[in-house]
């Protein structure tokens, strides 16, 4: 495993993700939301790092947690976690495989389950909102406490909106601190147009870690 992208669960670096988990839990309340689509307005805003670390921290509390690399255009989780790209999500959807057949489980990471993106697709934009994806998510929601989906940036692809159109799925918008305001507004407008429920924003790269010495 490439450890560079994951926080040490017992370190201060994990605290923001614990706070995020609690905030999401509070925002969800009594709703039956289990799917969290991590997206952002632009590329390189830190979606994969955020989603992987959130899933890692959540896996230590909520079991089981499934992390799906739903960015079939430019997947990153398999690189971060040192896993083969395929078989993965595409194979599950295309070949009707049982999701657990392509799931990688990390006992040392709180039992975190990971599905990588899978083989490249010519038009991945049509997949996110497809019934097959819906069926996969239904199955995952039935068997997991939380499902974290790493999706492409909103302004580059409609995948996040498509994923959020499935029942029990909501959006967490990652915002890079140095990002542009109008991009975020455009992304949120697109979410509103597709009636995707945005749980809230996560501001990434905001200052330095204050609790490091605590």
């Amino acid at each position, binding site marked *: *495993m490439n*450890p*560079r992208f*994951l*926080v*040490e669960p017992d*370190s201060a*670096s994990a605290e*923001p*993700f614990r*706070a*995020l988990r609690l*905030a999401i839990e509070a925002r969800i309340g009594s709703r039956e939301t289990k799917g969290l689509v991590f997206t952002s307005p632009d590329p390189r805003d830190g979606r994969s*790092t955020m989603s992987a670390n959130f899933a890692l921290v959540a896996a230590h509390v909520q079991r089981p947690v499934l992390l799906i690399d739903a960015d079939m255009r430019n997947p990153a989780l398999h690189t971060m976690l040192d*896993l*083969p*790209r395929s*078989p993965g999500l*595409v*194979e599950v*959807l*295309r*070949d*009707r495989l049982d999701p*657990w057949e*392509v*799931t*990688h*489980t*990390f006992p040392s*990471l709180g039992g975190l389950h990971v599905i990588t993106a899978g*083989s*490249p*697709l*010519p038009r*991945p934009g*049509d997949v996110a909102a*497809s*019934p*097959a*994806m819906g069926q996969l998510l239904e199955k995952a929601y039935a068997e997991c406490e939380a499902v974290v989906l790493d999706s492409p940036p909103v302004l580059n692809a409609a995948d996040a909106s498509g994923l959020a159109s499935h029942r029990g799925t909501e959006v967490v*918008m990652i*915002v890079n*601190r*140095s990002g*542009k*305001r*109008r991009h*975020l507004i455009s992304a*949120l407008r697109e979410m509103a147009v597709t009636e995707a429920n945005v*749980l*809230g*924003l996560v*501001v990434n*790269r*905001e*200052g*330095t*870690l204050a609790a*490091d010495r605590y």
Partner: protein
Amino acid sequence: MTAGSVYRALWRHKLFILVLTAAFVAAAVYVTVQQDREYEAAMLMRVQERGPNAGNASAALQASQDLAQTYAKIIGAGALKGEIRTFVAQCSRRRTAATQNRPGAPTGQSNSQSPKNATGPPAGSCESLGVTGNSRLSPRRVSEVSLSASPVQDLDLLSISARSKDPTNARIAANAVPWALRAFIRNTGSATTEKIITVKAATTPSAPVSRHLALNIVIAIMLGLIFNGALALVLELFRDRLPEPDELERALGHPVLATVPSLRLHPLPGTGPTSEEPVSVFAGEQSLDEERTVHAQEIREGGNREA
């Protein structure tokens, strides 16, 4: 823009402000060093009122002080430059006449350029002021000399200073002020009940006056901070920047769930290169062709498997 956001904007642009202010200081130092050196000659003259208060010493002193203040304003306004120019011109003509050894050369008793100025420089004044010989102060260059005057407190004295790039010119101009002031009073038709006496003549300054380098640096720092701070705020206004996290919710209508700082990501114990491999239910031998792709349409229609 609130005070807090102004502070944050300035703090964000601190490097920009500091670098540009340093550039301001460097420019101020360069300009100051490049400036021509100026010499200052100072003389002291007494202004005495000889009018109806002559018998009352206190009243006469008060009147003289008032006169000194008035003259200081006149000198400071540059009103004497014409008279000084005339003075220098007459002295130059005397010098020319003396050089040509012509009998009947002007002796200061007539002035064709200024009919009102019936009296030129007194005999010997040009020589005493050093206008003759190799003097470089021509009438045309009088304008390069800057004059200033200030009354001496509680006394009927007036301190005159003349600044020029040439020390001799500064001395000549300073010493010409009493004569020029008398000529000015005559030319304006004022009553001449006062007496103007040179108390201490100016000498040729041996060193240039200070260039005020430290003062210029302080001014450059202050102006630089103000100007560059304002520039940073203007840039901030036109920058398409995200609001602060505490303002995001109000600005965009969505809550901020968390702020994640720049992370210090540590190696995870038990997950390094020597750690156990992730457990995968999937056996890698299954016959899935990684090169094979499927049209999304097939997935939308229910994920029909290829034959």
